[in-house]
């Protein structure tokens, strides 16, 4: 229970379904530093506790700040130092919510962990679990859960996944929950809006000025501040070319302090190589049955799904070819793969090399 409306309603639905003696609320204290609200402020813990009180369930706060620092924040900072931009929400889900919290829930004797994510779990007759997009296409969070596997899904519940956001708020209002009108959380929970990503990273990384290089000609186009803060695909601050068209970042070489920029076409890629590959089902028959597997790729939280083919690269990774060229995927970003036959269902994920 983050203190937001989704997890509040998730708890309420569970209590309705299972009874209050079967449910315990838990809030994770993840970030020790300052935040706008994120998941960690005392005010949000208070909201979560008041909702739990109202629902008549016990509420605990678990302090996972050390793991959050080690597994989410430090890799986020270190990634930028070498030109990678990891997705902290996904790493938090991977290492904290669906690992550390699962272990804790286990040791306390619980059967499952429910979260307020907008996603759905479906179970086949054979007992295999599937991960399905949330019912509200605008709030669907299957992308940030795409790294879940059978073990985790077997013990996961997403009670609000079948509702739209409007229905979640209606339900919260109907139940008189204090979080009913609380605004949705935005952006990265450990970065304050007044400092922004650049301020946060600037306090933790030595930033270096670099050179802008024309992707087509290799020409040096002038200086660029803080290469660590430049992301592949970025348009902001890159100006226009001689042809009057906007320029995009096509590559960032932090050690060499070089940022290559080019035309929109040059900023596109026909595919992406993935490592840290996960499968929702342990047995991705489709990909093993044929060397070339078609799938649907989604490259950001609310990115447009795009048809692709997926091929094992022989060393544990995946090679993804898009049906039509896509804006380059920044190294470190997660690509979620969906089932071409059932585009609502996640089949796996990987991290862009």
């Amino acid at each position, binding site marked *: 229970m983050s203190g937001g409306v989704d997890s509040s309603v998730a708890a309420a639905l569970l209590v309705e379904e299972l009874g209050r003696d079967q449910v315990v609320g838990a*809030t994770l204290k993840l970030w020790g530093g300052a935040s706008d609200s994120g998941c960690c402020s005392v005010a949000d813990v208070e909201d979560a*506790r008041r909702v739990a009180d109202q629902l008549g369930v016990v509420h*605990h706060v*678990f*302090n996972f*700040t*050390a793991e959050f620092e080690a597994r989410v924040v430090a890799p986020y900072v270190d990634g930028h130092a070498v030109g990678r931009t990891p997705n902290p929400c996904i790493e938090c889900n991977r290492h904290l919510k669906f690992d550390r919290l699962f272990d*804790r829930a286990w*040791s306390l004797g619980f059967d499952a962990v429910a979260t307020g994510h907008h996603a759905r779990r479906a179970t086949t007759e054979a007992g295999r679990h599937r991960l399905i997009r949330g019912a509200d296409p605008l709030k669907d969070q299957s992308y940030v859960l795409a790294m879940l596997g059978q073990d985790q899904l077997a013990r996961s519940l997403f009670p609000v996944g079948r509702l739209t956001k409007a229905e979640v708020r209606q339900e919260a209002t109907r139940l008189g929950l204090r979080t009913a009108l609380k605004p949705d959380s935005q952006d990265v929970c450990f970065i304050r809006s007044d400092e922004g990503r650049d301020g946060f990273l600037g306090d933790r990384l030595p930033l270096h000025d670099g050179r802008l290089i024309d992707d087509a000609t290799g020409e040096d186009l002038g200086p660029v501040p803080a290469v660590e803060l430049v992301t592949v695909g970025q348009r902001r601050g890159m100006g226009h070319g001689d042809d009057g068209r906007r320029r995009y970042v096509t590559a960032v070489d932090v050690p060499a302090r070089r940022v290559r920029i080019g035309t929109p076409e040059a900023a596109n890629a026909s595919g992406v190589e993935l490592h840290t590959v996960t499968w929702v089902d342990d047995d991705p028959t489709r990909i093993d049955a044929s060397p070339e597997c078609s799938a649907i790729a989604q490259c950001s939280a609310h990115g447009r799904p795009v048809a692709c083919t997926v091929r094992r690269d022989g060393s544990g990774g995946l090679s993804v070819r898009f049906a039509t060229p896509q804006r380059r995927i920044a190294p470190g970003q997660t690509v979620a793969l969906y089932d071409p036959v059932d585009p609502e269902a996640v089949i796996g994920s990987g991290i862009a090399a």
Partner: protein
Amino acid sequence: MRAYLDHAATTPMRPDAVEAMLPYLTGADSFGNPSGSHRESRRARLAVDDAREQIAELLGADLGEVVFTGGGTEADNLAVAGVLGGLGARGGPIVCSAMEHHAVLNACRAAVEPGRGELREVGSDPAGRVDLDRLAAACTADVRLVSVMAVNNEIGTIQPLDAVSRLVRAQAPGAVLHTDAVQAVPWLAMAPITASVDLLALSAHKFGGPKGVGALVVRHGVAIEPVARGGGQERDRRSGTPNVAGIVAMAAALSATVAERTETTARVTGLRNRLLDGLLASVEGAEESGDRAHKVPGHAHLCFTGVESEAMVVLLDEAGVAASAGAACSSGAVEPSHVLLAMGLDKQAASTGVRFSLGTTSTDADVDRVLAVVPGLVAGLRN
């Protein structure tokens, strides 16, 4: 029946203390503001004066040395900020033990915000007592304030205040010596402690009094700048209408606590030893923190290797045992113990500490329950 073993966090109020405070809450002729000049005020003022005299005597202090505050944290803050005044630590370095309660630690840290002087935090020996060699090195002649607690709140070790006092007087004669004695009152003779320091903080709810009232003993001649300014109550050292009923109840609780101390100490020592020895014998990988020979009777603190205390206290609670893991922060989450870190444990080990703290209301049945449930819970969590 639940087993309440968190007396170091707070104690239930003693019935005689509740009884004592009632007239000053609702009594028609005694609810007054002690600063006024009519009969209702005089009654209230008399009660505060009586309580002050009683508390001073029980602590071995003079009547004029007792300043009532809104609890132990406020007393500690008044001690630190009051001594340093507007200058912060710029007037000379400050020294504190690294195992101080956060009420002292964070007050000291706030006094040395960037550019405002130096704070020297002195670690502990493995037994859980402030390291006197390191303290000696830290106490240079220009030190302005030294703070070493009387009894550590987490593991219960009695700090060598006598030696600390001699050391400070010899090496830093200009320094003010403060002690947070919040955990000492139920267990130790207070007069020798009071005699060895310049400032001493206490909190009523740790010995059967109400929450939200405490005191700072300020030795005559030690100048204290007020933190709360206003009507100049408490001889200009702590403004604000005194918590009359709370102060009266604190005096009653202290009086009863001191009167029963010998008996309580003997009885609780027996219970505590049975609890500790039982757990050490029945739980593999259980280790007592600190040296029992230097602990107050109420504290039993153990580390269960490989068992996260945050999970342990949740399961203990479900099994009917109220215990604690380290210090709870404002959100209710458990922080790795800074006390165990100060004793040289690593972060992981410092997250395995569980404190069972006993008090006047503790019974054999409480101990029996702990001994019955803990081995199973530890085994379950290790699986």
